[in-house]
């Protein structure tokens, strides 16, 4: 395995450039006080998670899925090559091959409670148990999600993580991913314009007006910052220091928000799109991805999630690259291979192939996200190298609804901490490894630490075995 470690020392703030299409950060930002970080590193590392539902078209050895061939993963483990990816879903990620890390052999630690999709969604980013009550499609996670952990420890002022959603939320099983804590599910925003407005504060202003406001605020903020600094004495009480730190961070964040914008044309497109139309699914997803990349590039958040489709996504997809863009049956029914959301129904001809094509569509969208992140330049390299984006699912495969072999595909080395260009197996002695260990790697690499100061090895439910997935880590030992 090629595991050459090439850590990068990023500056706290990026001087953004390249083709990222963000109006650039300003030099005065460098005078701002850095946030407290849990680790000694404070270099803007980030972790983004996107998920689609209904499992992937992988070999399904489970009861109902027995006999389905492998269509998703590469042909072989080890270095990713054109040859190993050819003909499989992941082939659509070939343009980023050298920056990918694919991890198989992972499972969720706990059974669901009456609804496979809900139980999977509950565990997907939490590694927590599924609630006894409520149950079924209303079940909830009994712990916080990884994005919440990152946000509360690394985000400016503990700001909420960016939580996005593509499509129409049905009432049966809408958002499933982001949890503040046990049974505390965070609502996701499915309107890109609203999500963007919350980040930047003001939209709909002409560039000239915006520049005027920006200039006035700069004049004022220079003085305000100086006054804040004069109050920040060494001998302040802890609570007063926290109070002023939060205030100081708020000033900086608003300056960042003011100085970072998506191109005016993209703002207009966001304002004009119907966020509930199934026909806009892919474009809405790309808009959300623009926002996620923009938000981490501008330092507005260190983590974001995007849930593509409902918990049991029933979108009737139209894929230009497949069957000339003809409308497909409901995705959830495709994943069951029958015209039914239950277990009885007429077979859907070519359902396995359709499922693989829907996976590919999501793979192309993931590739778009990696493109967006790569388009931002920093003095040390591009933005993608500073963080990582993860594409996952809340089921292993559709028919069996298995919690085994959940796909985790990463793009970006998280500051040189993740191996790149590899397909690795996390199994131990032939047994699946619980995915909390994968999150321990990501949390530690992004800069989160345990309360006592050590690397995180115990995320998720306390009954799960602690530790990491060493195959993911660049170098010989996890020192991050």
């Amino acid at each position, binding site marked *: 395995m090629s595991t050459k470690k090439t850590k990068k020392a990023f500056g706290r703030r990026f001087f953004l450039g390249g083709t990222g299409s963000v109006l650039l950060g300003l030099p005065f930002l460098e005078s701002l006080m850095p946030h407290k970080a849990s680790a000694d590193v404070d270099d803007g590392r980030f972790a983004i998670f996107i998920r689609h539902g209904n499992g992937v078209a992988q070999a399904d050895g489970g009861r109902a899925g027995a006999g389905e061939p492998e269509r998703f993963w590469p042909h072989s483990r080890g270095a990713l090559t054109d040859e190993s990816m050819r003909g499989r879903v992941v082939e659509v990620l070939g343009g980023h091959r050298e920056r990918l890390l694919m991890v198989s052999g992972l499972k969720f630690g706990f059974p669901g409670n009456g609804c496979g999709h809900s139980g999977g969604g509950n565990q997907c980013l939490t590694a927590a148990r599924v609630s006894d009550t409520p149950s079924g499609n209303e079940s909830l996670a009994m712990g916080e999600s990884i994005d919440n952990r990152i946000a509360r420890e690394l985000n*400016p*002022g503990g*700001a909420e993580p960016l939580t996005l959603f593509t499509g129409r939320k049905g009432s049966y099983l809408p958002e499933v991913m982001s949890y503040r804590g046990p049974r505390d599910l965070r609502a996701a925003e499915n309107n890109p314009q609203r999500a963007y407005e919350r980040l930047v*504060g003001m939209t709909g202003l002409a560039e000239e007006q915006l520049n*005027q*406001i920006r*200039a*006035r*605020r700069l*004049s*004022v*903020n220079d*003085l*305000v910052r*100086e*006054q*804040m600094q004069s*109050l920040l004495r060494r001998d*302040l*009480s*802890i*609570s*007063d220091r926290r*109070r*002023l730190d*939060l*205030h100081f*961070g*708020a*000033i900086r*964040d*608003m300056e960042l928000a003011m100085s970072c914008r998506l191109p005016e044309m993209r703002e207009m497109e966001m304002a004009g799109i119907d966020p509930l139309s199934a026909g806009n699914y892919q474009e809405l997803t790309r808009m959300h991805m623009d926002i996620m990349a923009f938000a981490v590039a501008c330092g507005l958040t260190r983590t974001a999630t995007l849930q593509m489709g409902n918990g049991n996504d029933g979108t009737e997809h139209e894929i230009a690259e497949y069957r000339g863009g003809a409308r497909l049956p409901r995705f959830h029914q495709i994943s069951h291979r029958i015209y039914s959301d239950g277990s009885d129904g007429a077979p859907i001809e070519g359902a396995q192939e359709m499922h693989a094509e829907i996976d590919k569509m999501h793979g192309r969208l993931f590739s778009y996200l990696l493109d967006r992140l790569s388009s931002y330049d920093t003095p040390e390299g591009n933005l993608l190298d500073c963080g990582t984006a993860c594409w996952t699912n809340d089921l292993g495969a559709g028919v069996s609804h298995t919690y085994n072999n959940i796909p985790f595909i990463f793009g970006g080395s998280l500051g040189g901490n993740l191996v790149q260009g590899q397909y690795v197996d996390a199994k131990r002695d032939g047994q699946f490894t619980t995915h909390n260990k994968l999150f321990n790697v990501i949390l530690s690499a992004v800069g989160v630490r345990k309360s006592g100061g050590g690397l995180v090895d115990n995320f998720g439910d306390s009954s799960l075995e602690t530790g990491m997935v060493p195959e993911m880590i660049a170098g010989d030992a996890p020192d991050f």
Partner: protein
Amino acid sequence: MLGCQGVIDDPDNSFSNDPRRTPYDPEDPPPPEAPPCLVDCDPTEPERPAATSEFPRLSHRQWENTVTDLLHLTARPGLAAGFQDDPSGTTFFDNNAVVLQVNPNLWQDYQNAAETLSERVAADGAALARIRDGAGSEREVVEALITRTFRRPATDAEVNQYMMVHATGPEHYPDIAPNDAGLAMVIQAALQSPLFVYRVESGTPEDGVVHLDDYQLATRLSYMLWDSMPDDELFRAAAAGELTGDGLPAQAARMLDHELAREKFADFHTQVFDLEIFDNIRVEGASDSIGEMMRDETEHFLDYVTYEQDGSVREMLTANYSFINDELASIYGLSGSFGSDLSKQDLDPTQRAGLLTQPGFLASHKGEVAPILRGVFVNLHVICSALPDAPVFETPVFEGDTRRERVTSATTCGAGCHDLLINPVGFAFETFDDDGRFRTDDGGFPIDAEASFPFDEGTEYFDGPVELAESIASANDSHRCYVQNWLEFAYGRPIQSGDGPLVREVATASREEELSVKEIVIRLVDSEIFRTRAVQIEEAE
């Protein structure tokens, strides 16, 4: 779910969220025979300065009042109404400095409000003239404005900084006169300054205690009584060094005559007695505004007692009069014509006594579990009992002919929760129906309003609401509770153990000397705790 402490059918879960309650587990050891002590539990504990932040932030009300006074506006601008809501923390009040912070959302609100207000002023010649009144040069205008913004004399260096901001005015607002544009920029910067947003109470500690200087005392006093910045007279007294001397209570007495102080008293009573929920009261056959009338009645009554009559806590709890109009009169069972405006009317002293027998309180705590809701409210807000958390009963059993019997059958958790503290108080109000009307029977069955309560100094027996009101007014508990709540509201922070002797002293005077409410407030000003701040000592992270 049946909660044994009053959350049965508690639609807004108001009680289960009360921060003062202590955890209760049915597996815990047997509950105490009397309510646990919250404050002033050890009479030998000495009075101590309170450890507080040196950067208490303005509440939204304070921000609104302050910009009005600072810029000599003729009316409040109404901008703070759009600010992000603040939490209340562990007090009943919205000015608890422990939880008032400037997060990104509020900072955005502050920025927008500062820009909006400065541009309004710059476009209003009369407003600019008021700000410039009495000053000569533009520098003198800026110096005066910054001094008032910081609530202490601005230094030359600070004035220089703001003059530099002033100089940028024409660049940012090329379409208005240069000095007006400069002043607009100065106002924007002033309103976003941490020295404006926070009431800075820095100082050199001696043995861990900071003695506030005259300007800091003036600021504490004006925000305590007015929720706004000091006026010219208070600034003068601070400059003359009168406040660190014996001039503080005299200034307080003067300031209590101001309309802002009257508003502050009203705000206190609104928050401590939760009067806003009265607005939602509906009474069958009455107009939709009956709830607002009930709130008006109680607000009018409290203002009359505390301001017009210079009255006491006892008066508040036992007065047999209120302020009534035609519609309220029907609830009181009064005959005659009273008009649509409220007027003072004497009430039947065998039926009504003070605040707790007014329809607003009674009708905002109604329904099959009204005795529980009323009992919990009085315990928490009037007596300051520490109630345990609600245990859960799977299948509550409501059996009996009267509401009292049904509530008793459904609340079987014993002396630890309902039987000792909640139900007895609630049952005393059984002479009132859900709308606050006096009644002599409960569905044809006799009313039983007899009960007892373990006050600080012993158990008191009472029969009905009038005797209950007398018991509460005579007990130390209610005076201590009222003073404690005033202290939290006036000082803008939760009570601390070192406050015990001051609370005890003022509460004792309130009970034994029938101290007026105004005098209670003045005594809270004329104390060492008001004049000092202890350095916060916290565990390292």
